[in-house]
C-alpha cells in the first residue's frame, strides 16, 4: 500500500510496510510540474505488465517493483487491485506509477484538484 500526499511543490509517495521490500523502494518524490494526472483504474492489474526488474511479481498476491514495457518504465505496488490508481508522469524516470491506496477516488481528487489550482 502507498500513502500519497502533497508537500509544497511535490507529490510524495510513501510505500508502506513490507511492500517496500518487494518494491525495492521506500518513497518517491515527484515535482507536481511532472505529474500529468491521476486515474482510478482497478482494471489495470489484469493487463500485461512487461518485464520486471527489480521487484516482485507473485501472481494473485503482489505486483511490486519496476516493470519495463514498450520502452516505458512503470512502477507498481498493488496487492488489492480494486484499490489501484494510476499516476501519469512526464520527464521522470518512471512513465507512470500504479499504486494501491486506501481511498483511490479521494486520492485522485486530491491530485487532480491540486494540478488544476496550479494551472
Amino acid at each position, binding site marked *: 500500500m502507498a500513502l500519497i500526499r502533497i508537500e509544497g511543490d511535490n507529490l510524495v509517495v510513501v510505500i508502506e510496510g513490507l511492500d517496500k521490500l518487494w518494491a525495492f523502494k521506500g518513497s518517491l518524490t515527484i515535482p507536481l510540474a511532472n505529474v500529468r494526472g491521476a*486515474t482510478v483504474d482497478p*482494471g489495470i492489474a489484469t*493487463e500485461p505488465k512487461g518485464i520486471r526488474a527489480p521487484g516482485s511479481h507473485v501472481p494473485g498476491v503482489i505486483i511490486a517493483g519496476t516493470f519495463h514495457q514498450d520502452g516505458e518504465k512503470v512502477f507498481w505496488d498493488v496487492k488489492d487491485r480494486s484499490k489501484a490508481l*494510476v499516476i501519469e508522469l512526464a520527464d521522470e524516470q518512471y512513465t507512470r506509477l500504479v499504486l494501491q491506496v486506501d481511498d483511490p477516488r479521494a486520492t*485522485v481528487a486530491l491530485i487532480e484538484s491540486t494540478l488544476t489550482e496550479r494551472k
Partner: protein
Amino acid sequence: MGRPRAFDEDEAVRAAVALFGGRAYDGVSVDDLVSHLGVHRNSLYKTFGSKRGLYLIALRRHLADDVRPLLDALAGASDAAAALRLVTSADLDLLLLAAIERAPVDEEVAAEVTAALAAVDQAIADALGVSADLAAALTAAALGIILRGNPDNAATALAQCLDPLT
C-alpha cells in the same frame, strides 16, 4: 517519444464524447474506454494523461462539434418557438451531464459549462432581440424541457406566452 500512436486520436475523442455523454463521468471506467475507443491502456495514459484529461478534451470537442452548430442555427431563429425547438432538438447530452455531475466538483468543467451556456443565451438574445436575462430564462426552460423528456406541449405553451413579447 517512443512508438507512433497506433490509433486515431480524433475518432477516439469522438467515441469518448458518446461514452461520457451516455453514461456520465463516473459511469465510465478505464476498461470501458479501452474497449470502446480502440486505444491501448498505455496509449490512453500517454496521450491524455488521465481519465479526467480525456474528459476535458471530450467536453471541449462536444462544445465545438455539437454546441457551436447550435449557436449558428440560433442566429437564424425568428421567434421563441424556433429557438426552443433548436435547443430542445440539439445533442446536448454531455453538456447537461457535465453541468450536473462534474461542474460542481471540477472548476475547469464548470468554466466550460458556464461559457457554453452563456454563449447559448447570447445567441438567443441576439436573434430575438431580447434581454440577456430573458434569453437565459429561455435557455433554462429549454434545458428543463430536455430533462423532462421533451414534452411538446410545454415548449408550445411557453412559446405562445413569449412570442407576443419578442
